[in-house]
Structures are given as structure tokens and as C-alpha cells.
């Protein structure tokens, strides 16, 4: 590996001329090959957030219940009973297109490690997936591989996959999005952080051995795709969920002792980023001797070992007097345990291999002088008003068509491949409620979990779309009776060097921030994935939101299933907003107009009312009104409860399929009481029908039997994949 280090090589490693100049200034000499590798991955978009940091800083991150906001491996919030929820969502987009199974599987593995590295036992996985046009063969291959990969990893490691969302759009044809979220539970007073401390303390490597897989994965995740993406397959890592399971158990066993001073998983940029971040955060130096690194392959160079993204590895700083006890725990679990270095007072990272110093970099400037870009932005023009759109097919056909379309069809084919019951705490399984409900083992308390984003809104109006993604997550938690606490965000955008894309990013952040403030729903962790475009085709802007809420009593959670005799009450205003609706796209064949406006004050008022009603015990079922509008929401409740609905309102297609925000459908026994309470709270409420029979009936329309509706709703995935 005697390659000449120069600007040309730096460019190949993803560093600009200006960035390479900065490396030379910091080092005061030409860096070694390994040093250049370290700079290039630490300063990659993926690791440095150089294009997004200025905007991310504007997000609200604080609330009385927030224990750790962004900046740690995952966000931490107080959920009562002395417990903390630790959670984050992270993307594995590029690898999942190149190699769908392994890309998705290692995405799950990576986010699990971000959570248990903080001392939390993972209790739930969720995901947010976007795929291209289902008519393309490549989409089918990617969906199949991604679903198998998520299941293959999550099922084996024994963490239930309880929720998620899936959209299809041609803008994701060459660039699907795979965002994985993990939620863990820890003692609120025993959160583990990554800041190293104690000069001379041992730096310990545990987990799988290091191989040559995933070298420069972080760099690959920081560029756009061209036609040669197949050639990048070697940059995709291979996961081993069996080792991950052992690693979780061994780490949690060690965390029950007082041995660990600092711990960090080896994720993107592997040993480089974990060692640099641990030492950097602790203001100490670190010296590594790679001769002691557990290796899977022979003749690995320092460069390869520092940049490998082999999976299922952790780096720890231990109390020296606990080292042997720790070694015994990892021996019990048959995992590698190696002291590979120690903390120093030099402020440098020094990497030795076979007696040669392969890298010696001052840590402060590596972090402080990392590039930070205020990239130019241009605003997305506001879409023209939609105007009147005639109904070409009638309500009946529209309902059956929408129930069958890829974005609304039953996701059972996907859920059925994910173990959602392991742990014995899943109160509401996928599809049973607006948010998944997972009880905390040994407590009455439960978490309400959801992932949300409506990319077509974000494309038309990124600010409103960003706001809607946060609001939708808040609403889904609210619709179960949960109190929304905090979110994690996964910002998936195209090439930030284009002003219109950076403009989307900035606008989405503005909208999200406004919603977070209005709803007391701060951002506590997140991930940015840029350059999501292939051959110049950008994805829809997709700020995926993972929301977490809590119920003091799991038994109070409500789902979507209605039962005979209940009355359906609509909460919120219906104007009949068709702009950017699914009806407009699927029935009228148009993707235009502005997305529905959001009144954050009304959102909060309506949602707080709904939650209050649920917690008072008055509500039997609840579903928010989102994609597809009111009639779709009612149909979904009917299918969930296998009970028909007699609707007593007359309305046009805009009334039934418009996507006005801030609405919920409640199923109650005593509708009069609900209306009185709504009036008192200043919340619009109206009776829309009664749960009865085996079909959906509307004035002036042939009844739609549940059998017919279910057949339409169930068709898409099995017909496509089997």
C-alpha cells in the first residue's frame, strides 16, 4: 500500500482541495496513507454533518423530561418509574440498494448498538421504508431483500419489530430509504456515555473480529450514486445477529458492574470514529497498538483496520482493576476481548502497527477544524392552488381503489415476517393501533411508538411537510392515549450542494422546529443522510420522524378496532383539502396543489382533547385521519374490528378523501357525552355513523361489504411478491 499521498488521492477519498489543504495545515506535513484515511472518514458528510450542522442546531432539543439530547449515541428521556427510554433512528440507504439483505440487516444491527451502548436493553425496533415504483423488477428485489434483512437480523437478535411505515414513489427507484429505529430501556441513573477519562486506563475492544468489510462505507454514504453502484458492493458490511445478541447480553452484564468508564460502538468509520470520539469528548489522548486487534483476515494494514466497518464491535475504557473481571464476562459469552491501547495525556491519537507509528494526529483540530458549510439555499416555490377537481369515478370505486393502492394496502405481508411478540410485552402489534404499544416488563407503564413522514407533502412544500411529519407522529401517539415525549429524526435528502435541495432541508427543519415547539415534542437524537440521488434523480425530501410517548397504564391504550353498537365521532374540521392527497394521485392521476395546511394550535387542542377522552375511559377505539382521508380512516377501523359502519353524512369526494389535518375518529359508547365534552373544550366534533353490520354504507351509494373491502386491501403485497 505504498500509494503516494497527494491531492489526487485525497480527492479519491472524498476530500475537496480546500479540505485537503486544511489537513496539510493541521499536520504541518504530508499525512501518511492511514492519516489521510482517518481525516477523510471523520470529515465525510456521514460523520461530520458538515452540510447539515448549522441547521440541526436550530431544532428544539430540551424539555424537563429530556435526559440526553442530540450529541450522544442516542437520545434519552425520562419515562417515569425510575426508567429512561433510549432511542434513535438511523439510515442505511445506500447499502440497502446495493445489497438489500445485508444493507438492511446491518442497519438494524447498527442502531441496536447505538442504544445498548448507553446501557439500555433494546425492547422494540421500528422502521421507515421508501421504495421505488412497484412496477419495476428492481423494486421488487429491493423490497424482498430489505424485508428479509430487517427480519433476519431483528428476529435472530430477539428484539420485537413492532411498527413502521412504507411508501412507494418513482423518485426512490434508484435510491430506496431504509431507516431503522431502536428503543431501549435503562435505569435512568445508569446511562453510559462515550467520553473517555483516566490517563493510562486500558482501551478494550470486544465483539467480532475485524475484517476488510465496509472500508470507506462512510465515504460511500456521502456521495451520489452513478451507474457503477454495483461495483460498490464490497463497501457493504455483513451482519451477524448471533454475535450481536451475545454482545448485548455481555455488555449489559458488564454494565451491571462498575467496570466501564466509557463505551462506544464501532459504527460508521469503525475504530477510527469510536476512538477519536471517545478521546475527543474526554479531552484526552489515545494510543492504539493494532498488533493486539482481533483480526479475521491476515496481512491487514493499519489503514484497513482503522477504516474497516466490520459489524458487532465495541470499544470501551475500563477501570484497570476491573479488567480481568470484564475479560471473564466476555469469555463466558465466547466473545473476543482485547486490550488494544490506553488513554494518554498527549491530546493525539497515535496508531502503532508492527512497531511503526502509522498515524499521529492531534485530536482537537481534527474535531474543531472539521469542515462546516453554510451551503447556499433556494426556496421551493409555493405550489399553485389546486382549484376544483371533478370526481371521475364515484366514492365506491375510489374507496376500493385507494384501499388497494400500494401506499394504503395492508402491510401484513411485511409484518408477518417480523417477530413482533418476542419479549411478551407487545400490547398493540403492528397495524392494531396508530402507534405500537410495548409494556415495560414488570411495570404497568407502556411506550407508544411510531414512525412517520409524508414525502409528497415535503416535495410540494418542505416546510409544511417537515411540520406535518412531526405532527403526524404526535397524533399517532395521541390516538392510542399516549403522552408524546420526544422524537428522533432521520433527515433523508438529495445532494446538498444543489441550492434547491439545501433549501428543502432548511425549510423542513423550520417546519419541524415549529411543530416541536408547539407540541412540546423535542428532538433528542437523529441522523442525516444526504446525496440520496442516482444519476441526478433526487429522492423526495424525507424527514422521517420516530416518535416516542408513554402511557402510565398499558391497559388504557386503545387501538383501531371498532365493535358493534359504538358511535363514530369525528374530531376536527373538514374543509375537503385535495391538494397532494392520495385521492388526487391515485384517482385523478395528479400530484399537484399545496399540501393541507396545519394549525398547530388546533392540533394541540384537538389532540389533548382526544388523549383526555381516551384516558378517561370513554373511548373504545381511535384512529387519526391521514393518508386517504376520512373514508379510508373509517374503513381501516371497520377492517380492524371486522365490523361494518353505517355512515349518516352526505359528502362529496373532497369531504370523504380530503386530507385536512388535525382530525381523529373516535368510537365511543356515549356520543352525547363526547360532544358535550368537545364543546366545553372548544373542539369541533360531529357524529358520523354507527358501527354495525358487515359493510360500509353511505347515503346514495351501494353498500361495500367488508369482504370486498378486505379483498381489495389485502391484494397488493401477496399478488406482487408471491
Amino acid at each position: 500500500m505504498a500509494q503516494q499521498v497527494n491531492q489526487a488521492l485525497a480527492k479519491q477519498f472524498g476530500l475537496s482541495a480546500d479540505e485537503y489543504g486544511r489537513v496539510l495545515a493541521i499536520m504541518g506535513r504530508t499525512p501518511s496513507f492511514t492519516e489521510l484515511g482517518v481525516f477523510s472518514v471523520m470529515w465525510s458528510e456521514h460523520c461530520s454533518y458538515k452540510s447539515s450542522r448549522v441547521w440541526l442546531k436550530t431544532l428544539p432539543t430540551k424539555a424537563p423530561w429530556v435526559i440526553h439530547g442530540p450529541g450522544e449515541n442516542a437520545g434519552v428521556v425520562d419515562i417515569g418509574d425510575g426508567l429512561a427510554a433510549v432511542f434513535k433512528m438511523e439510515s442505511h440507504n445506500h447499502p440497502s440498494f446495493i445489497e438489500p439483505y445485508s444493507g438492511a440487516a446491518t442497519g438494524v444491527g447498527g442502531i441496536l448498538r447505538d442504544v445498548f451502548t448507553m446501557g439500555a436493553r433494546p425492547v422494540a425496533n421500528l422502521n421507515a421504508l421508501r421504495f421505488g415504483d412497484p412496477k419495476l423488477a428492481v423494486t421488487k428485489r429491493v423490497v424482498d431483500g430489505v424485508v428479509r434483512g430487517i427480519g433476519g437480523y431483528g428476529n435472530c437478535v430477539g428484539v420485537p419489530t413492532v411498527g413502521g411505515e412504507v411508501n412507494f414513489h418513482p423518485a426512490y427507484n434508484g435510491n430506496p430509504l431504509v431507516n431503522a429505529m431502536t428503543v431501549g430501556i435503562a435505569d435512568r441513573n445508569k446511562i453510559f456515555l462515550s467520553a473517555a477519562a483516566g490517563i493510562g486506563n486500558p482501551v478494550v475492544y470486544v465483539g467480532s473480529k475485524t475484517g476488510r468489510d465496509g472500508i470507506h462505507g462512510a465515504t460511500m454514504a456521502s456521495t451520489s450514486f452513478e451507474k457503477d453502484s454495483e461495483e460498490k458492493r464490497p463497501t457493504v458490511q455483513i451482519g451477524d445477529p448471533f454475535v450481536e445478541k451475545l454482545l448485548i447480553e455481555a455488555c449489559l452484564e458488564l454494565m451491571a458492574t462498575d467496570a466501564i468508564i466509557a463505551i462506544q460502538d464501532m459504527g460508521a468509520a469503525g475504530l477510527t470514529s469510536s476512538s477519536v470520539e471517545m478521546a475527543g469528548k474526554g479531552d484526552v489522548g489515545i494510543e492504539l497498538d493494532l498488533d493486539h486487534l482481533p483480526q479475521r483476515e491476515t496481512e491487514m494494514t493499519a489503514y484497513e483496520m482503522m477504516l474497516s466497518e466490520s459489524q458487532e464491535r465495541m470499544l470501551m475504557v475500563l477501570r484497570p482493576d476491573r479488567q480481568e473481571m470484564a475479560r471473564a464476562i466476555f469469555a463466558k459469552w465466547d466473545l473476543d476481548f482485547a486490550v488494544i491501547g490506553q488513554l494518554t495525556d498527549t491530546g493525539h491519537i497515535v496508531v502503532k502497527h508492527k512497531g511503526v507509528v502509522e498515524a499521529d494526529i492531534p485530536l482537537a483540530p481534527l474535531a474543531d477544524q472539521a469542515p462546516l458549510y453554510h451551503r447556499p439555499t433556494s426556496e421551493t416555490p409555493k405550489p399553485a392552488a389546486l382549484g376544483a377537481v371533478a370526481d371521475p369515478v364515484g366514492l365506491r370505486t375510489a374507496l376500493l381503489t385507494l384501499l388497494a393502492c400500494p401506499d394504503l394496502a395492508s402491510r401484513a405481508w411485511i409484518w408477518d415476517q417480523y417477530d413482533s411478540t418476542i419479549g411478551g410485552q407487545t400490547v398493540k402489534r403492528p397495524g392494531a393501533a396508530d402507534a405500537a404499544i410495548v409494556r415495560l416488563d414488570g411495570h404497568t407503564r407502556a411506550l407508544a411508538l411510531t414512525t412517520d413522514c409524508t414525502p409528497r407533502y415535503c416535495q410540494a412544500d418542505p416546510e409544511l411537510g417537515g411540520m406535518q411529519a412531526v405532527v403526524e407522529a404526535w397524533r399517532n401517539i395521541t390516538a392510542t392515549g399516549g403522552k408524546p415525549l420526544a422524537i428522533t429524526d432521520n433527515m433523508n435528502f438529495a445532494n446538498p450542494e444543489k441550492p434547491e435541495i439545501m433549501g428543502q432541508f432548511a425549510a423542513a427543519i423550520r417546519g419541524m422546529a415549529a411543530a416541536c415547539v408547539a407540541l412540546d415534542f423535542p428532538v433528542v437524537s437523529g441522523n442525516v443522510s444526504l446525496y440520496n440521488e442516482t444519476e441526478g434523480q433526487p429522492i423526495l425530501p424525507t424527514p422521517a420522524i420516530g416518535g416516542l410517548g408513554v402511557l402510565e397504564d398499558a391497559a388504557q391504550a386503545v387501538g383501531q378496532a371498532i365493535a358493534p353498537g359504538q358511535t363514530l365521532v369525528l374530531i376536527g374540521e373538514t374543509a375537503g383539502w385535495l391538494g397532494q392527497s392520495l385521492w388526487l394521485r391515485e384517482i385523478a392521476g395528479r400530484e399537484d396543489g399545496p399540501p393541507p395546511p396545519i394549525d398547530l394550535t388546533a392540533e394541540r387542542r384537538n389532540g389533548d382533547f382526544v388523549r383526555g377522552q381516551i384516558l378517561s375511559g370513554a373511548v373504545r377505539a381511535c384512529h387519526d385521519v391521514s393518508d386517504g382521508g376520512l373514508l379510508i380512516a373509517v374503513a381501516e377501523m371497520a377492517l380492524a374490528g371486522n365490523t361494518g359502519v353505517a355512515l349518516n353524512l352526505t359528502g362529496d369526494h373532497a369531504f370523504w378523501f380530503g386530507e385536512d389535518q388535525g382530525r381523529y375518529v373516535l368510537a365511543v359508547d356515549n356520543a352525547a357525552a363526547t360532544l358535550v365534552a368537545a364543546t366545553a373544550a372548544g373542539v369541533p366534533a360531529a357524529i358520523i355513523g354507527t358501527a354495525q353490520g358487515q359493510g360500509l354504507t353511505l347515503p346514495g351509494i351501494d353498500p361495500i361489504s367488508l369482504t370486498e373491502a378486505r379483498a381489495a386491501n389485502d391484494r397488493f403485497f401477496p399478488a406482487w411478491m408471491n
Partner: protein
Amino acid sequence: MKAGIVVFPGINRERDMAIALHASTGRAPAMLWHKDADLTGLDLVVIPGGFSYGDYLRCGAMAAQSPAMAAIRAHVARGGYLLGVCNGFQILTEAGLLPGALLRNAGLRFLSMDCHLRVERADTAFTNRYRAGEVFRAPMAHGDGNYFADDATLDRLEGENLVALRYATAEGAVTPDANFNGAARNIAGILSPSLRVMGLMPHPEDLVDPLMGGTDGKPLFDALAALEVA
């Protein structure tokens, strides 16, 4: 009744099993790491679900060769009860403690859903809180649950009345549609001739709490709570 759960590396439903046993017996079962599994004094040994050793060879094949299996065989030989669920069932077939094998699901996909089980005999220590012919619901979660044995073995199992549970409709009809994984003769669970070893693929331990959707699985654990090694 004293129960112990043997945990091989990669087993992941041991806590679910402990919750279900605790709910019925009123005491926590012993959690036994395979390297130091002392089964002395136990009435019941359970091998729960998971992916032992990653299931990178055949499901259960590695664990079946583990030193801990000697202690488990000795437990059975002295009249102890043994329950294998999911990966535990696979391990018992690989170890030869139960006949047959578990193949990939017929559809070649992992299946996580509720199934219905018809109780084929209710006069065993495992099933005596159900009625013969009763149908109960249980979650299943496996990629390799397609029970297979040659016709002679299947005929012998049926002839000796050793089929404990079959996949059925909610009404109790044993049909191909109710047989999600394609198991031979809809077999979901079988017994040893001594009636002291049972293996099954689904997870009754995940349906013992009304909050989780029902208590259909609880009678199995209530029955186990009452057993005693004669």
C-alpha cells in the same frame, strides 16, 4: 414444581418463558447457562426459542451436540419432564429426543402470526388443562417450523397417539389453509412415548396475559405448575 430454563447462546425467548412459568407457578424458574447447567432437583426443564449458535448450520444442530445435552438426557432418563419450544423443539429433534425434523417453512419466509392449535390429547402433564379437541390460539414466529418425518414415523406417531397439537382453523378443522408452515399432517407439537418430553413450534408463553391479546397459552403452564416427578 421446580423448573429450569436452559439457555444456549443465541436463545432469545428465555425471558418470555420465565414470565409464563412465573405467572402459573408463582416462582421464578432457574435460568441455567448451558456451560454450567445443573439440573439436579428439577421437575421440568425447558429449552426455549431463539437462534441457538445463530442457527447457521441446521436449526438446533449445534446445541444438540453441546455438553449440556448430556445433563438433559440424564434428566429425562430419571423421569424428569422436558419441554422444547420453537428452537427448543428443533434442538430436541436434532438430539434425537423426539423424532422427525423441522424444515424451512413451505413458503420459504419467516412467519410471525397467530395460529390456532387443536389439542389432540388432553391426558398428558403438558395438556391436561385443555380439553381434547379444544382449539387455542398462539403466536408463531419461525422460519423453520415445517415438521417433517417419513411416513412410517408419522404413522407410528399417530398410531401411538403421540401428536399433541395440530394446526387448525379457529373452529378446529385441520385444513391446509390453517397449516401456515406446511407441516406434515398439520403437526405443531409431539410427545415422546413416555409422555414426558414435548416439543412444539408456536409460542403459548407469549399469550398468557389478557393485555397481550389473550390467555390462550396459560393452561399449558397451569398444567406444568401442577406436575411432579413421580
